[in-house]
C-alpha cells in the first residue's frame, strides 16, 4: 500500500517523523515502514492522523488537556490493531509500538506494559 503525499503532509505525521529523526536518528528512508504501519492503523480506525491526535486533546479554560476517555479508546484500538496484524508476535508488537510512538511524539502520554510478559503472550 502506497502512503499518499496528503497523509505524509499531515501536521502530526510531520511532527512525529521530525521528533523521531531528532531523537533516534531515524532518517527518511527508515520512515517508510513507520508510515505504512501508521497508515494501516488509520485505515483500521477510519481516522486521519491529525483527527486522532485532535480527539485525544480537549480545550479547557486552563488550556489544552489530554482527553482521557479518547486516549483510552485509542490505546485499546492500538492493542486490537496489534493483535490482528499478520505475522508473529514480534511483528505484531512492532506495529503497536510504532503507532504508540506516533501518539507519544504528538504529546499524548501513553504507557503500555512490557509486551513480552509471559501472561501477555498467552492472552
Amino acid at each position: 500500500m502506497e502512503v499518499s503525499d496528503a497523509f505524509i503532509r499531515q501536521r502530526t505525521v510531520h511532527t512525529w517523523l521530525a521528533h523521531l529523526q531528532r531523537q533516534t536518528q531515524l532518517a527518511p528512508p527508515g520512515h517508510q515502514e513507520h508510515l505504512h504501519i501508521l497508515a494501516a492503523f488509520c485505515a483500521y480506525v477510519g481516522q486521519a492522523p491529525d483527527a486522532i491526535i485532535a480527539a485525544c486533546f480537549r480545550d479547557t479554560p486552563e488550556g489544552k488537556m489530554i482527553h482521557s476517555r479518547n486516549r483510552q479508546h485509542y490505546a485499546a484500538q492500538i492493542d486490537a490493531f496489534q493483535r490482528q496484524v499478520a505475522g508473529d508476535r514480534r511483528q505484531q508488537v512492532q506495529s503497536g509500538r510504532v503507532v504508540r510512538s506516533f501518539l507519544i511524539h504528538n504529546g499524548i502520554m501513553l504507557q503500555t506494559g512490557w509486551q513480552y510478559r509471559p501472561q501477555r503472550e498467552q492472552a
Partner: protein
Amino acid sequence: MEFKEVIGRRRSIRYFVPYRPVEREKIQTILEAARLASCAVNATFLRAIVVQRDDLAPEVLEGLQTPVSALNLELAPVHIYFYGDMQTLRESRGNTLKELIEVGALNPSHGWSRAFVDEVVWKQVIEPLTKDPLKLVGAVAVDCGVAICQALLTAFDEGLGACLSAFEPQRAQAAFGVPAHWMPLYAMLLGYPAESWEAGGQRPRPPFGELYFEGHYGQPWRRDPDVVARLKAAKMLQEPAPLSWRQEEIKTLARAFGLPE
C-alpha cells in the same frame, strides 16, 4: 561501595529486569536503613508495605498505575509503598522524646528534662502541631523523605536499581488494607536494572551557586574547584547526561520490551 560513590551512582532507574527477583535480605536491608533515619521528636513517621509484583492480581496491578507510572510498576518486581503515619505524634504524647532523655541522647547539658517535655514541649509545641494539618503534613513529609532517601541509597549500595513513583492511593488502600490515617507518599520500585548503571549519566541540576548561599540570599556559596576534583575522584560527581551512547541504549531496551521509541 563507598558512601560518596553510592550518592554518585544513584539514578532513577526506569528499566528493570522484570523476571529477576530481589533477594529478601536486600529488601530487609533497605527497610533497616529507613528505620534508622533522623526524625524530629524521635517520632518515626514512615511506614511501608512491601509488595511482590507477581503476587498482585493483574487487575490490582493495573489499578495501582497512574498514566505516568504504568510501565515502571509493571517492570519492577518489587514495590515498596511508603506512607506517613499521621497519628504517631499524637499517640506518642512526648514519650518518644522522653526515650531520648532516658538513653542519654537529650541531656540536661542542653536543657532537656522529662518535666520540660511534659510541661512545655508537649503542651506548647507538639500537641498544637498535631492539630495543625498543614504543619503536620510538612513535618511528616520531611522526615519520611529523609528515611526514604536512606532506603533509596541503600538499594543502590545493594547493587539494585530503584526509582520513586506515584501510585493510585485509593486502590492501594483497598488492596493492601492501609489504615486511613496513613498519608500516601511514593512507591519505591525496586529491581535489578536492565539499563546500565550509568543510566545515561548524572542528571542535569541547576548551577551550584543558584541553589546555595553564604551568609545571606544573593551571596552564592563559593564552589571550590579542588573539592569538585576530589568528589570526582571519589565518584560522587560523575559524567553528566547525556552519555554519547544513551540513545542507542534506549533504542535497544525499547525493542527488547516492545516499547515505543
